[in-house]
């Protein structure tokens, strides 16, 4: 399913610091269309910052990001148009509490894509059915469990029909018994051919669904490869240290 001829995201020499703290120190990476890439690493290693740079929620200090052939780090870029094509799912869900489940999904397509309301609703209903939330369509998000909120956040991103979805620790804030229902949705999405970048601490999941795994440490990609290469045949000392600490 990976199209090696189509580079979707090309990152070159990305740097980012907060004050004196250097978070990203020269990241180079190419993501191909249809690829599922897991990003692993310790807290504070810069993996979330890297992900948030890709849709410019964080603005990098230097380096370039080319999305689908267009440089998006330039000054005159209409970033809103690009963000519509780059979905994102957050650790803390960030569903809109003042909108019903169905309106959480339709609000952005209607406003920004000028999508017909009826069309947006039917698209949203299809998505809700896909993740088993159809019966919640008229509830407010406060009535949902964490797992349900995260599934809602995923279909809210899908409703914009993005070319890639960025997952920023999507299961870290969930109760343990809700992790699987969210991972199942992400896994299904991965199999459907969606391009996915996921920052995660779920090593088993990363092993199972990823085409490629990146290990980030101190703002650099220290090791990368297929799940077998990274998990079974680890090359670097730093990655081995990290895996020894998290796998048991």
């Amino acid at each position, binding site marked *: 399913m990976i199209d090696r001829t189509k580079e979707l995201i090309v990152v070159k020499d990305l740097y980012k610091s907060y004050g004196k703290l250097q978070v990203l120190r020269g990241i180079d990476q190419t993501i191909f269309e249809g690829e599922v890439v897991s990003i692993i690493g310790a807290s504070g290693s810069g993996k979330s910052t890297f992900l948030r740079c890709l849709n410019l929620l964080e603005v990098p200090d230097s380096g370039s990001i080319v999305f689908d052939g267009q440089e998006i780090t330039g000054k005159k870029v209409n970033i809103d148009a*690009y963000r519509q094509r780059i979905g994102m799912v957050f650790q803390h869900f960030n569903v*809109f509490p003042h909108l019903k489940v169905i309106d959480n999904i339709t609000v952005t397509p209607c406003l920004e894509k000028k999508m017909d309301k009826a069309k947006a609703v039917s698209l949203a209903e299809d998505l809700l059915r896909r993740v088993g939330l159809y019966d919640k369509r008229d509830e*407010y998000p*406060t009535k949902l469990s964490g797992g349900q909120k995260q599934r809602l956040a995923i279909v809210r991103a899908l409703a914009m029909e993005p070319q890639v979805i960025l997952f920023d620790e999507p299961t870290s804030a969930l109760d343990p018994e809700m992790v699987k229902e969210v991972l199942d949705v992400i896994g299904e999405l991965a199999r459907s051919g969606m391009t996915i970048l996921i920052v995660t601490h779920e090593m088993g999941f990363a092993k199972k669904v990823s085409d490629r795994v990146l290990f980030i440490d101190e703002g650099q990609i220290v090791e990368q490869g297929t799940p077998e290469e990274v998990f079974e045949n680890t090359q670097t000392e730093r990655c081995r240290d990290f895996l020894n600490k998290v796998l048991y």
Partner: protein
Amino acid sequence: MLQIIASIWQKYGYVYIQGAWGTIYIAVLTVLIGTLLGTLLAFLRLTRSRILQAVIRLYVWILRGTPALLQIYFFYFFVPKYLPFEMSERACIMMALVVNASAYVEEIIRAGIQAVDRGQTEAARSLGMTARHTMTHIILPQAIKNILPALGNEFIVMIKEASLASIFFIVEITSAFKTVQSATFITIPALVISGGLYLLLTTVLSFFMKLAERRLQVND
């Protein structure tokens, strides 16, 4: 005591009623215009302009750091001198109260907006929503729940602060007490009636505020 109050009310009730209308008039107009001005200031401050932010911070600092009474004296004595048109005494005092209220409202609205979780903005922007739509469709509808109760309190404060206008014998509830007291030389009962009117106004207002708050909290 009750008898005295009843007889004062019988004879001078109209003075108090006039006073109550005066207070309502001052408070309603002050809150309305003060809220408009305060909202404008809050949005100007939320823009990224450093100069605007500094000017508004100075404005708020002065108005919140000095007594309202002092501000009323300032508008009463100085402002009319430099205006090209005539202004009534009441207009001068209301102008002072409006300016004073705008500083508090600015803080209320800015704080209400900033209290909405940053994640909401990030989620909306990550979907590709414009900054303007994010504000109007995602942030403000949530911020209003923080803003409205505080704005209601400001309304109550204004009803009471309007009493400062009595120093200049503008018709309102405290002036009504002064009028009755100087006509009858009866002090405490006359004062009690004024106090009762204030309580009536603020209680009715609190009741409607509670109602509004409860409606806003339906989906919490």
